[in-house]
């Protein structure tokens, strides 16, 4: 019995073992690991496996150890990043016999495979063709053939060949090799109707069958339901062929990169010929929830490929449309975002409708920008009123209904000012009169509420009502209707709040009037298109995601589904990108103003001749003191010593070095390019201005390429390029002569011209032959005969560049002449649903290829920056700055603060970024695609100096364009700080100093350590400005500059160095980072603005300077990275830059005369110069002295040049003169200008006269500043003072007869006094009792002891 039992058990066990073995080897589920496959691929593969005995699981990069648990492994080799250890682990698994295949390996090391060639080919074929049936067969094949499990295995079908270049439709098997096949399918399905509009839907290059198709299906269905015939295109190589055959009415482009990769601008040519828009919606590489929570929206390489590259083809509408969603099995699927699909389709439909609808029926809304009160309409470089009028006139000619458009531009200007004003919050009187005038368009409260509820996400609606309460009844929208065109001022975003400090964590919500205006345009007016006129408004700067906006972003909601066009200056490509990406605008570039030379010739020429003569004769042994002092007298008389910070002791001669500086400065003043009046859209520059602009466009390129030829020929030392006076004398002269010759006679023989400069005929011919060779299309490229040494090759390149630069002269003239027409033509075409071709940006002197204008601006791929050329420039500027600082201070700077702006970043391809890297002692590492994804330390020996610490403040635009560069910078700082250097390392020292401050400020040692390396800062809540300009201008709201500094530190203190804490704010951190700052640097790349003409310069550079002064107690040195001349990047100190700008523009009669030929825009430009001078006075008093204000007084109040300044202002814009005089008075009131009583009386009289005659303009200084009003009144006689006060009251109060004494005052922050807490008496009693008890015990013990002893 016992034996039987044992036997039975043994047999049973054997059976179980056999069954188990059979199960394991033949039937058990096959586990297949998918390693490194993208989520969208995984979704398709996992869903394809319908067999319960095949378990397909994706493994992330962090799950290598789990691979060994699987029966088969498939690896996606593309982009696989594994360490040596991980590779060894995978190889070990493969060596153990687990079926292992790597697909699409880009690195041979990662190509791990243990299949035989037949098996590998089969697996590869299944994977390559993709699709459900192939994937299903693949998994069955792996189970059956590779793992040997024949039970419960499905059919292994042969590979179903899928043409990757095909058209497809909803459903797995629906792929079509030709358009005809596809169309016949549509006909069978009754989806084909004659006359239907056609949309080409271009999808991923890997074909639609390798991924889930829910997103594509829903897009196809959505367009089909709207009556369109949709052509979904898969694949890459036949894309353009399909498009040509389809002849679509619009292209929707979903993949990454350019439409036709690797073939330059073929797509642009096709789109231009077809004249259809290219829509580029965005696919999020993240789940919906993650994207919604992401403050950036999109970043890094994904941003480059999804947004930047399509922009090169003229792609528009970067509208977030598709995101990942996790299904019930945990698989990520691409799906269209429900609330965005309709918006996208509506927008595409609206663009296509522009083609169908007749012009007379189209409704167009045009937004313009103007400051509050009587301020003129503004747009960078534009004379706005005539430009706007020209545009409207042109639209009228094109058949648009513009009934009621005034007959003249003057009348039009008056109508704009009267019927569509903008008010400051305090101008209650003016506002009340306007509201009762019958001009505003009223939006009914109920309608607005209904529109908002429909368009906004519930949380956005709640945020709005929380912030401003429920919809406040009917809302007035300033608007003028001319037939079917509505012209509107963009409402002010401010709400009249008193605090300049932003509140962290609360994204600003636009006020009701702002929202009402845009919703009225969309919902009530029913605009077919919206135009923002000129650079720039505020819509695109409402904080939110930088790109890939969601429905929670206000900009997205306000634009809605209306086609949006933005008339934008070519000179501001950085901000244009924000308009494109954040408000879905198609930009239409326009010219910047014409240029001319400063015209400061006569006196300076004499000075130059004297200094030149002196420098050629004098040396240390022969100082020629009399001649020296004569020059010094002249320099002091002209005030040059102030700009160069030299002494004015007329008994003591200048040194040779000082004399050289005067010589260079004089040359710079003569050569400086200045604006010659503003540009009027649609009106070509006068011929003389075209010629002066072309001369300046060509001067630097010709002169520097000529110098390069001389350098190659050994006739010039490269170092002499820095010698401005020498260069001007020897090269600008020749260049100007040649340019003049070509302009006079475009048929001038360029060959003879170049030969006349000492180039031998055979050299010239050889250079030309090289250019005509296989690579001849690259002007500076290879193309040279193979057998040349480096020196000869450089010479050939230089000759070729010289030739090309000379050849471009006539072309530039032609394009400058044509551009005004192409701009308006392009707008008309865009409003007709046409294509706007792409262009690079920058003013036409800095970047001549930005011509012709009338095109859609694009930026650069931030991932490739700093480029090699930019690295060289940055390095050079870094060295120059260090040397200059060392010469002044006897030591190199320990810490340098930078402001990064998008415009200079784009146009210089990251030269300032390169300079920062160089100061830190790190250099970029490029991958094989030229991208800079990593950095490495420059060795200390190579660097030859300690690493210099940096702080970076980013503008909102730079942050939004190049977030990945900010992260790279932050990494560079950490790397430099950790460098194992001998001796000093200022970066490491900077970290310690910051940590110390942070500890003092109440951070724990751990936090302080972590935060001490934070060096990248920017606007709070994703804002773009600093918020201090308003504060600076409201001079009665602050007394000490530390108040401005505190506001600056607060508003610009958000961290932008890493995506983890992107935009977070830590109190005191910015201040800690700024410790010990020695230098503040600002890049400058455009000839259209300078320190005085653009308020953002004093706002950012000045604001940072003031803040550094308050933090460190020391005024930092200031430098501009002058990138305007792409042949000669250099650093320029602020004082001298302001000197050059004020002399060549502000006080230059030639400039003033040219500007006075303009209108209100030009007048506003003068006012801005004065305002910005005051701004600098506050930010850095040492660069603006009394003499400068005296000169302002002489030129603009006393009119010493006899130019009729007052008449000009009275004619064009009395408000501008009011503003200027108010600023001058405020400067004196605040003690920045020690003006005489007579001067003040003159200015006050002029100011009061303007107010009395034209009413108070209330555009900044004039009405809101109660202290200034009193100050002005004090300088007037009693009658004048009364009349002045009465006029100001009229503007401010609804009933001007009552002086209710209201004035806007800064809300005082109520600080809670730290009243002392009452002392806890019970505790004190307890303590006293305890003490007494202790003493009693001791005493008793002592007594006891003594007793015992006795």
């Amino acid at each position, binding site marked *: 019995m016992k034996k039987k039992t044992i036997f039975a058990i043994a047999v049973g066990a054997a059976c179980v073992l056999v069954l188990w073995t059979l199960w394991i080897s033949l039937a058990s589920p096959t586990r297949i690991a998918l390693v490194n496959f993208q989520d969208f691929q995984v979704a398709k593969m996992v869903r394809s496996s319908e067999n319960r005995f095949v378990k397909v699981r994706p493994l992330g990069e962090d799950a290598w150890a789990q691979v060994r648990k699987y029966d088969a492994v498939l690896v996606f080799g593309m982009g696989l990043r594994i360490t040596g250890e991980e590779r060894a682990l995978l190889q070990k698994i493969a060596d153990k016999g687990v079926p292992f295949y790597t697909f699409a390996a880009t690195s041979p090391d990662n190509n791990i495979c243990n299949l035989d060639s037949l098996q590998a080919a089969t697996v590869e074929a299944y994977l390559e063709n993709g699709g459900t049936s192939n994937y299903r067969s693949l998994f069955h094949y792996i189970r059956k053939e590779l793992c040997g499990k024949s039970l419960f295995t499905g059919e292994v079908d042969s590979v179903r060949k899928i043409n990757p270049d095909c058209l497809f439709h909803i459903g797995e098997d629906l792929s079509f090799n030709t358009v005809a096949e596809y169309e016949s399918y549509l006909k069978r399905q009754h989806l084909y109707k004659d006359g239907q509009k056609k949309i080409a839907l271009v999808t991923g290059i890997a074909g639609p069958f390798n991924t889930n198709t829910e997103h594509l299906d829903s897009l196809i269905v959505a367009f089909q339901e709207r009556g369109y015939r949709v052509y979904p295109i898969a694949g890459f190589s036949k894309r353009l062929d399909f498009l040509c055959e389809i002849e679509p009415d619009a292209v929707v482009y979903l993949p990454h990169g350019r439409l036709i990769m690797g073939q330059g601008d073929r797509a642009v040519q096709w789109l231009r010929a077809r004249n259809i828009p290219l829509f580029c919606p965005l696919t999020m590489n993240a789940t919906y929830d993650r994207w919604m929570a992401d403050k950036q929206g999109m970043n890094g390489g994904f941003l480059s490929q999804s947004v930047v590259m399509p922009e090169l083809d003229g792609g528009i509408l970067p509208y977030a449309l598709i995101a990942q969603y996790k299904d019930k099995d945990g698989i990520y699927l691409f799906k269209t975002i429900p609330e965005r699909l309709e918006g996208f389709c509506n927008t595409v439909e609206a663009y296509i409708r522009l083609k169908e609808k007749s012009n007379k029926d189209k409704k167009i809304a045009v937004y313009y920008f103007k400051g509050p009160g009587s301020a003129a309409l503004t747009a960078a470089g534009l004379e706005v009123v005539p430009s706007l009028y020209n545009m409207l006139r042109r639209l009228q000619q094109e058949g648009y209904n513009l009934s009621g458009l005034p007959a003249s531009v003057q009348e039009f200007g008056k109508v704009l000012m009267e019927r569509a004003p903008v008010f400051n919050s305090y101008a209650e009187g003016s506002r009340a009169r306007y509201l009762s005038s019958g001009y505003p368009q009223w939006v009914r409260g109920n309608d607005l509420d209904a529109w908002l509820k429909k368009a906004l996400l519930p949380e956005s609606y709640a945020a709005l009502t929380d912030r401003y309460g429920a919809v406040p009844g009917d809302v007035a929208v300033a608007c003028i209707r001319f037939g079917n065109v509505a012209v509107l001022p963009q409402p002010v975003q401010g709400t009249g709040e008193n605090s300049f400090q932003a509140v962290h964590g609360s994204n600003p919500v636009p006020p009701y009037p702002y929202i009402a205006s845009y919703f009225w345009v969309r919902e009530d007016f029913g605009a077919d298109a919206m135009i923002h006129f000129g650079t720039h408004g505020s819509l695109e700067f409402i904080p939110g995601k930088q790109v890939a906006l969601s429905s929670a972003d206000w900009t997205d909601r306000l634009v809605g589904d209306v086609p949006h066009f933005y008339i934008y200056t070519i000179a501001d490509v950085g901000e244009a990108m924000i308009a494109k990406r954040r408000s879905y605008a198609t930009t239409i570039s326009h010219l910047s103003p014409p240029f001319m030379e400063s015209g400061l010739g006569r006196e300076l020429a004499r000075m130059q001749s004297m200094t030149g003569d002196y420098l050629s004769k004098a040396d240390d042994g022969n100082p020629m003191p009399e001649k020296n002092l004569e020059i010094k007298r002249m320099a002091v008389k002209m005030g040059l010593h102030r700009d160069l910070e030299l002494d004015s002791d007329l008994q003591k001669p200048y040194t040779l070095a000082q004399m050289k500086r005067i010589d260079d400065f004089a040359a710079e003043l003569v050569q400086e390019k200045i604006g010659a009046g503003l540009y009027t859209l649609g009106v070509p520059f006068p011929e003389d201005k075209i010629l002066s602009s072309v001369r300046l466009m060509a001067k630097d390129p010709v002169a520097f390429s000529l110098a390069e030829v001389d350098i190659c020929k050994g006739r010039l030392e490269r170092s002499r390029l820095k010698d401005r006076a020498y260069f001007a004398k020897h090269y600008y002269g020749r260049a100007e002569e040649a340019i003049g010759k070509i302009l006079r006679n475009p048929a001038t023989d360029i060959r003879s011209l170049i030969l006349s400069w000492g180039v031998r005929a055979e050299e010239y011919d050889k250079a030309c032959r090289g250019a005509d060779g296989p690579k001849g299309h690259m002007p500076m490229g290879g193309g040279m005969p193979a057998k040349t040494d480096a020196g000869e090759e450089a010479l050939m390149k230089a000759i070729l560049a010289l030739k090309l630069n000379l050849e471009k002269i006539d072309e530039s003239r032609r394009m400058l002449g044509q551009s005004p027409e192409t701009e308006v033509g392009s707008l008309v075409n865009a409003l007709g649903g046409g294509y706007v071709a792409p262009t690079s940006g920058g003013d036409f002197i800095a970047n001549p290829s930005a011509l012709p204008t009338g095109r859609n601006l694009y930026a650069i791929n931030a991932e490739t920056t700093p480029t090699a050329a930019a690295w060289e420039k940055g390095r050079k500027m870094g060295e120059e700055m260090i040397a200059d600082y060392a010469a002044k201070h006897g030591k190199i700077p320990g810490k340098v603060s930078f402001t990064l702006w998008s415009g200079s970043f784009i146009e210089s391809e990251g030269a300032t970024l390169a300079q920062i890297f160089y100061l830190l002692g790190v250099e970029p590492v490029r991958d094989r695609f030229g991208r800079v994804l990593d950095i490495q330390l420059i060795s200390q020996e190579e660097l030859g100096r300690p690493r210099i610490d940096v702080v970076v403040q980013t503008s909102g635009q730079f942050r939004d364009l190049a977030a990945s560069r900010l992260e790279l910078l932050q990494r560079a700082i950490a790397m430099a700080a950790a460098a194992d250097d001998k001796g000093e390392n200022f970066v490491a020292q900077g*970290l310690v100093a910051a940590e110390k401050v942070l*500890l003092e400020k*109440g951070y*724990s*040692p*751990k936090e302080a*350590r972590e935060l001490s390396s934070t060096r990248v800062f920017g606007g709070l809540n994703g804002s773009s400005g600093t918020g201090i300009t308003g504060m600076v201008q409201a001079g009665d709201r602050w007394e000490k500059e530390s108040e401005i500094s505190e506001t600056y530190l607060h508003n610009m203190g958000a961290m932008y160095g890493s995506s983890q804490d992107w935009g977070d704010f830590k109190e005191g951190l910015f201040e800690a980072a700024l410790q010990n700052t020695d230098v503040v640097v600002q890049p400058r790349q455009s000839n259209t603005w300078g320190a005085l003409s653009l308020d953002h310069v004093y706002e950012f550079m000045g604001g940072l300077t003031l803040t550094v002064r308050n933090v460190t107690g020391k005024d930092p040195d200031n430098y501009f990275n002058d990138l305007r001349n792409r042949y000669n990047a250099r650093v320029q100190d602020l004082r001298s830059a302001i000197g050059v700008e004020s002399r060549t523009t502000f006080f230059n009669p030639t400039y003033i005369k040219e500007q006075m030929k303009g209108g209100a825009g030009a007048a506003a430009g003068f006012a801005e110069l004065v305002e910005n001078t005051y701004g600098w006075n506050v930010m850095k008093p040492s660069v603006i002295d009394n003499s400068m204000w005296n000169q302002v007084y002489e030129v603009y109040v006393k009119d010493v040049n006899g130019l009729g300044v007052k008449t000009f202002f009275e004619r064009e814009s009395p408000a501008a003169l009011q503003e200027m005089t108010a600023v001058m008075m405020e400067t004196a009131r605040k003690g920045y200008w020690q003006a005489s009583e007579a001067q003040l009386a003159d200015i006050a009289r002029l100011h009061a006269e303007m107010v009395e005659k034209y009413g108070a303009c209330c555009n900044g200084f004039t009405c809101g500043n109660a202290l200034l009003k009193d100050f002005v009144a004090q300088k007037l006689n009693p009658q004048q003072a009364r009349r002045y006060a009465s006029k100001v009251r009229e503007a401010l109060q609804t009933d001007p007869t009552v002086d209710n004494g209201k004035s806007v005052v800064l809300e005082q922050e109520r600080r809670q006094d730290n009243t002392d*807490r009452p*002392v806890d008496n019970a505790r004190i009693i307890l303590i006293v009792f305890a003490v007494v008890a202790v003493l009693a015990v001791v005493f008793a013990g002592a007594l006891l002891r003594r007793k015992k002893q006795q």
Partner: protein
Amino acid sequence: MESILLIMSLLCLLTGIFRNSLAPGKYYPAVFAVVCALFVLLAGRYAVQVNKLGVSRAFSDMGAMQNLHVLITLHLLFTLGFAASKMQKTFGLERNLFYRIVEYVPALLVFPALFYLHLVLLFSFPGVSFACVGGVFAGVTLLCMGGGAYLFRAAVPETELRTELLLIAELLLFVLMLCTTIK
């Protein structure tokens, strides 16, 4: 206030050393010194998370200071008990259980003092690695608490004298504490 707290902490350490020198047995001081050093090492991870303002706020809170005062008073009572116990032992008197136990109770105030001193060091040496600060401080603690106690035993062999010094130091600590609560 910070200076007073620093002095008080150092005084706590001193009383700790005195008391450790009076501890029973040959190895007790060494064991206690190791415990102190370990405490420093282990408390480091918490010390780096404490901020200066938090500390200042805590010590500027009169209520907290008064609580601390109660603690020090209690500590002083224990020290008196300890001293009485030592005296009874020295003079060969019969000790009850309480006195026998009290002899083994270490100077517990050493721990908060060490923590505070650790914080002071962290705040005073920005840029130095936390591990380094903690390690060095633990080493110094080990040396002071252990070596100091044995050195003190050797230098002042009379238990009564050492006890007297301990009491004086404790009373000084107590007076300082009183000063901190006087407004």
